[in-house]
């Protein structure tokens, strides 16, 4: 069963993120992904994540397909204008890519090309709308296409922020314009996540929206500090950092922490999404026990 069918049948889904290589050889990464292939429904292929340059997500998604792996291709507003977006999307569909995650993208300044010109010609809501138009066989000017796309449109939402009302405002618009599932930023504060889910349950436009909860298996206290400092939108509470710091075997403890989070979010989510994966073998072991 593919990712879209599983989602629409309300089956619990598992996604795992992968950064395309900073180079041309994909063999090693593909071998890594094959370790978890049977446990994962789809692979999120990032688009120059954290504004750090890697192989085109379109090319890499196609390579995944060729290897029997289902991609969710990320597309961000940071590096492309509306022309480039549309042509990229038509190409992606023609190559067999069916799932998208439409994102704003991290700011240029956090990455390794801080002098680059940020594009942000359209925003992520407008991007969702644009993809919906392509799905209806129109381009952004409402001019008919010779043949249409049929993408499953995903978008992002961040329950961790202090500005939840802003996230909900945007989520409603994304939903209204065609997003059918949402992936969240990695969750560490489960209570906050639960409150968020309760809040959106009460909103008419967000009924039946599918939420896939972000999960990170931490590696060390250092890793936690790094994410808190460098990754926008991720917040690891001090009690979890302390918990890791006090653990005799931090890696083992991190796995327990992730399992606990998953157990709590599972009943109120349509899936989980592993982000920032450091070691696919660790994830493979983890998934085998899940």
């Amino acid at each position: 069963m593919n990712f879209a069918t599983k989602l629409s049948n309300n089956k619990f889904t598992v996604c795992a993120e992968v950064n395309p290589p900073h180079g041309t050889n994909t063999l090693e990464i593909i071998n890594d992904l094959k370790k978890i292939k049977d446990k994962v429904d789809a692979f999120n292929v990032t688009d120059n994540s954290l504004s750090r340059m890697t192989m085109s997500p379109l090319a890499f998604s196609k390579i995944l397909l060729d290897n029997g792996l289902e991609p969710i291709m990320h597309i961000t507003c940071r590096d492309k204008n509306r022309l480039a977006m549309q042509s990229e999307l038509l190409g992606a569909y023609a190559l067999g890519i069916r799932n998208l995650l439409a994102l704003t993208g991290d700011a240029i300044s956090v990455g390794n090309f801080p002098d680059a010109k940020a594009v942000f010609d359209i925003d992520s809501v407008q991007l969702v709308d644009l993809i919906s138009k392509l799905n209806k066989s129109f381009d952004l000017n409402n001019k008919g296409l010779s043949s249409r796309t049929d993408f499953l449109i995903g978008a992002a939402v961040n329950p961790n922020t202090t500005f939840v009302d802003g996230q909900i405002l945007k989520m409603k618009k994304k939903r209204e314009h065609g997003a059918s599932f949402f992936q969240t930023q990695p969750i560490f504060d489960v209570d906050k996540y639960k409150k968020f889910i309760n809040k959106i349950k009460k909103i008419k436009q967000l009924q039946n929206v599918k939420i896939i909860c972000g999960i990170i298996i931490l590696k060390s206290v250092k890793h936690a500090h790094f994410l808190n400092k460098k990754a926008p939108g991720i917040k690891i509470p001090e009690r979890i950092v302390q918990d890791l710091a006090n653990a005799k075997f931090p890696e083992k403890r991190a796995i327990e922490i992730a399992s606990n989070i998953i157990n709590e979010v599972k009943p109120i989510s349509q899936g989980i999404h592993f982000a920032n994966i450091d070691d696919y073998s660790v994830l493979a072991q983890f998934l085998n026990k899940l």
Partner: protein
Amino acid sequence: MIVTKKKSFEEVLELINEYNKIILIGCGDCATLCKTGGEEEVLELKKQLEDKGKSVVYTSVIDTACDQRLVKLEIKKFPKEYDCILSLSCGSGAQAISSLIGKPIFPATDTLYAGVTKRIGDFKKMCLLCGRCIIGEYAGICPITMCSKSLLNGPCGGSDNGKCETDPDKDCAWQLIFDRLKEQKKLHILDSYKEPKEWNIK
């Protein structure tokens, strides 16, 4: 006001390296307020250039360097013999001159944005001159300039405690927009979908 910043003297020197007889033109408007191209800065640059053995053959501060009528009058006063012009105005002022005269012209400033003067020498970036102005829909706060990702339909997920994900010292424009509209009881303005921006209105 157009906010400018002085180029380093080394960069200026490099730009005019091959020329000797130089005209310096400042601007009595924005560049004077920015302390990048007023009377004082023109004289200072003149001295620095002369110390390096260059000959400054003419200096002037045009009241408004981007007004070509004034530039035309000024050009008439230029000496017959000179090699190049150094402009201490913004890029627009420099081009007001270059479009009227065939001689080499170089900028002595970098042009940053349209901003607001808080105190002398203290400016705030307010406008990127994007064409159709849309701040009426955003509580008078420009999402193009003040939001680091120029978002029109709502904040990104990185907004935290009122600050922008790109810089903990920078306010999140969307939090400001939201709070102000809430205060005005006009939050519903944000509910409607905002179409992609027209960047190229004529």
